[in-house]
């Protein structure tokens, strides 16, 4: 084992910005109103109905530009993110290339208005059109739209589209159920419910996926659609998926492929060829655009020709040599979000896909699966760590779910402690599992194709070191982190109405109330 890094996060003890500044300081000035304008128009205040004039200025901080800039740059430094090693399972951490950031920041993207005449938007429309063709080739779908602001939003788009599809056939009132698995992302169930469907959740068998019989028992004339990922978050591929789709189709339901875990099957199969009616790709994860800590993101939604008339508008279409926006689609579900999507993310994803090419995409998938299996070999050699579904002997795809149940039982150190301790060595917080935790004390690394073997080895070395610590000195793990921007959080106030504070003004009020109590 190489020596572990002697890492420490920057500690700035930065005040909350609401506490900073002095009255009268300015961070941004605007031109004075032209005298010719004010001469004609008069005082601004006279233009506002008296009862809506702002009498008390907002209690914002008063700061200079460098104070604001430095404050936020310090805060950025206190964010580990991908500056460390982030093998964050289910999120497919990839390189977000510098050139793509620069391209998407150009005024020919940043300073476009979506209501401009399409004649003035030919470049961006061509990129969208060309990228749609790439995604269609990868998935076998006939159309893609980019309106959904994330993966969950694409699942929601599908729920809305399924409503329209079944309503168009006069069947919506009876088709009120959506089938998913307990191992599917929580948003798949949640978006179906938010669209008004009842959710039927299939449990897993020992082989890691629900049985075909369980599916058959759940499917009926009430089934609106099936929404499922494959492989799931344990790296297990359901080999019966084609039969599943047949069962759902025979009952008149639709099948949606949540391609959140695309890296494991990228360039190996096509959703449409398996029989799926629709699918979703996360451009902010799988296609090399940054995640931004939670967006702006894009859930690219693709579907077959049979569903195309229900897609949200507008669609990018090519007419002779010109690209245009088609808003005239009478059966469309309308919008799930204003405008046509997070276009800079689409530009970045297109650039990423072009940089990779077919061979690069295939290699990325290969390397991801290779690296995951390499990790498995080493991780299972660490005392206290086991693998989910230990009886499955086939190689997992791009990620594997493990358990620290043994470690926890033997040392009292759990995954949350280990997660905190790993950050002490510059490892970004590891991904555990979505709710519910089917595997006790779960964690789910995903190596992806960006990180080097050295990085992966370091990540494993850190984990091995911490597991040793758990047996020799559990306190150091349980009280972690020690080398981070701040110490372990006190979580008690977070769910207490008398103490939680989502804004500074709430915090001030509650602090004053608390002081009076004393």
């Amino acid at each position: 084992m190489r020596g572990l890094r002697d890492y420490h996060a920057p500690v700035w003890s930065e005040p909350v910005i609401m506490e900073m500044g002095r009255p009268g300081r300015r961070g941004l000035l605007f031109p004075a109103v032209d005298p010719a304008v004010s001469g004609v128009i008069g005082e601004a205040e006279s233009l506002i109905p008296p009862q809506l004039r702002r009498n008390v200025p907002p209690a914002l901080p008063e700061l200079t530009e460098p104070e604001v800039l430095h404050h936020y740059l310090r805060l950025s430094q206190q964010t580990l993110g991908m500056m460390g090693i982030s093998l964050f399972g289910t999120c497919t951490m990839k390189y977000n290339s510098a050139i793509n950031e620069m391209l998407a920041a150009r005024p020919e993207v940043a300073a476009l208005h979506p209501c401009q005449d399409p004649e003035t938007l030919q470049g961006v429309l061509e990129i969208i059109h060309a990228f749609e063709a790439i995604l269609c080739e990868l998935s076998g779908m006939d159309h893609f739209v980019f309106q959904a602001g994330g993966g969950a939003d694409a699942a929601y788009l599908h729920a809305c589209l399924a409503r329209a599809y079944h309503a168009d056939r006069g069947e919506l009132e009876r088709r009120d159920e959506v089938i998913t698995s307990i191992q599917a992302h929580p948003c798949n169930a949640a978006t179906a419910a938010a669209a008004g469907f009842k959710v039927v959740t299939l449990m897993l068998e020992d082989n890691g996926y629900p049985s075909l019989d369980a599916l058959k028992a759940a499917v009926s004339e009430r089934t609106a659609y099936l929404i499922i990922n494959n492989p799931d978050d344990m790296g297990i591929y359901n080999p019966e998926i084609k039969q599943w789709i047949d069962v759902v189709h025979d009952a008149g339901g639709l099948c949606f492929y949540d391609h959140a875990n695309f890296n494991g099957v990228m360039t190996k199969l096509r959703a449409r060829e398996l029989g799926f009616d629709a699918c979703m790709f996360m451009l902010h994860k799988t296609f090399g655009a940054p995640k931004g800590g939670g967006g702006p993101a894009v859930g690219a939604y693709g579907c077959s020709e049979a569903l195309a008339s229900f897609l949200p508008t507008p669609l990018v279409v090519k007419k002779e040599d010109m690209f245009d926006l088609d808003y005239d689609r009478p059966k469309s579900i309308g919008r799930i979000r204003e405008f046509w999507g997070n276009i800079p993310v689409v530009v970045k994803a297109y650039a990423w896909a072009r940089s990779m090419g077919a061979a690069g995409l295939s290699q990325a998938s290969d390397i991801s699966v290779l690296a995951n299996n390499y990790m498995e070999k080493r991780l299972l050699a660490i005392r206290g760590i086991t693998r989910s579904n230990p009886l499955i002997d086939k190689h997992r795809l791009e990620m594997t779910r493990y358990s620290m149940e043994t470690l926890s039982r033997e040392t009292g150190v759990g995954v949350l402690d280990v997660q905190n301790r790993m950050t002490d060595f510059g490892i970004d917080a590891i991904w555990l599992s979505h709710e519910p935790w089917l595997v006790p004390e779960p964690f789910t690394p995903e190596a992806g194709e960006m990180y080097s073997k050295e990085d992966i080895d370091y990540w494993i070395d850190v984990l091995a070191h911490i597991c040793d610590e758990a047996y020799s000195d559990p306190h150091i793990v349980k009280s972690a982190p020690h080398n981070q921007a701040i110490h372990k959080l006190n979580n008690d106030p977070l769910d207490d109405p008398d103490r939680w504070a989502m804004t500074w003004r709430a915090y001030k009020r509650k602090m004053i109330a608390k002081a009076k109590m004393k």
Partner: protein
Amino acid sequence: MAHPYMANSTPDIRQEMLEAIGAKNIGQLFEQIPVNHRLSRPLQLPPALSSEVELERHIAGLLSKNESCDTALNFLGAGCWQHYVPAACLEIVSRREWLTSVCGSPMSDHGRNQAWFEFCSQLGELVGMELVGLPVYSWGCAAGHAIRLASRLNGRREVLVVKAIDPERLAVIRNYCETPEMANHIKVTLLDYVFADGRLDLDDLLSKISDNTAAVYFEIPSYLGIIDGDAAKIIAIAHSKGAEAIVGVDPISLGVLAGPGQYDADIVVGPMQSLGVPMNCGGGVGGFIASRDDARYAREYPTFLLSITDTIKPGERGFGLSLFHQTSYGLREKGKDWTGNSTYMWAIANAAYMALMGPQGFRDIGELILQQTHFAASLLGKIPGVRIVFPLHFFKEFVVNFDGAGKRVAEVNKMLRREGIFGGKDLSKEFPELGQSSLYCVTEIHTRQDLERLAAAIEGIVAA
């Protein structure tokens, strides 16, 4: 060939890892995928542009076919506005530490969490509310969630929505309210606006509000730019029937306009793009939800909520997720609607923008926009055949009608484009009752000369 984005794309590393695994080849690792699930034919993708120089040239070449609002003189707004984006905001959001971050932990991503808290805190000051959620996808999505939240609070299933609303936003709201076939459908009933001045029609509100009304939703300024002085009356009427009052506001206006907390709104929603985010062809939008800090409301929020707290070290502060369990991540289909990735990076741009602006910045920009907008309207209103439809109280946007000139908006805009001007948004399809009308947007980026140039161009077009 080794690819610059993939460290393990060299043959010897692949071999090393294969040997460690004990596999003969990589194909063996995909053994779970049955053969008859594989691609039916090889992929046909455009050739790879793996060298950055080729890639840059290709993309930049495509983008050069666009004509942006940087070169044209733009008056389009309608939910995506051309405001000045300070360079400091751009530098801050391009920092890789948070740009490429995913979840992290409250300790290891402390700085990012603090920036999010500062977004909520500063926005809370502008709107006059103590509870602000982390962002959602857009203003329309925020309004949709807020309406559903109101319906969960009072169990009612009808929402009254102002008719003078962005049709895009209304389409989003309609999806969020579910189609009539669904058991939890919320009926959307539109409220007329007064034809003379664009205000919400109080008589129509009084005739439509009932004990079934979950919420009344309206906007200040409205989609058509109107500052409706009856805001407090509308809210009082909503409250008299036990309905929630949801107000949509553009926060850029709140240096000069009262925050909705001041006139007793229950829930406030709005856009984020106006606070330091480029238009991005519509990809700059985001939305927020705010309310009183009342547990009844907090426990129905669909968004992540982030609270300030302390750490095990005395005197040290941190920021952690509140009420996580009620989200879709905690409760799946039993959670409050759903949440996921949305527009969190823009929350940081907003935080920096609000801090740069301060109270005086918001007042200055508000006054500048008010005066310039009214100046533009006065110039256009003087042109024979051109009419300002609602000439009294408006902010940033106003409706210009060309019926008197016998011109279609599409025609006017086409002619304007020849002069390098992007005219206002055509309302003639969406609001046929307004005839050939167009929504013009004027902000701090415009100069007096810009506005005079617009007026001269339109004068020429309608005279022709």
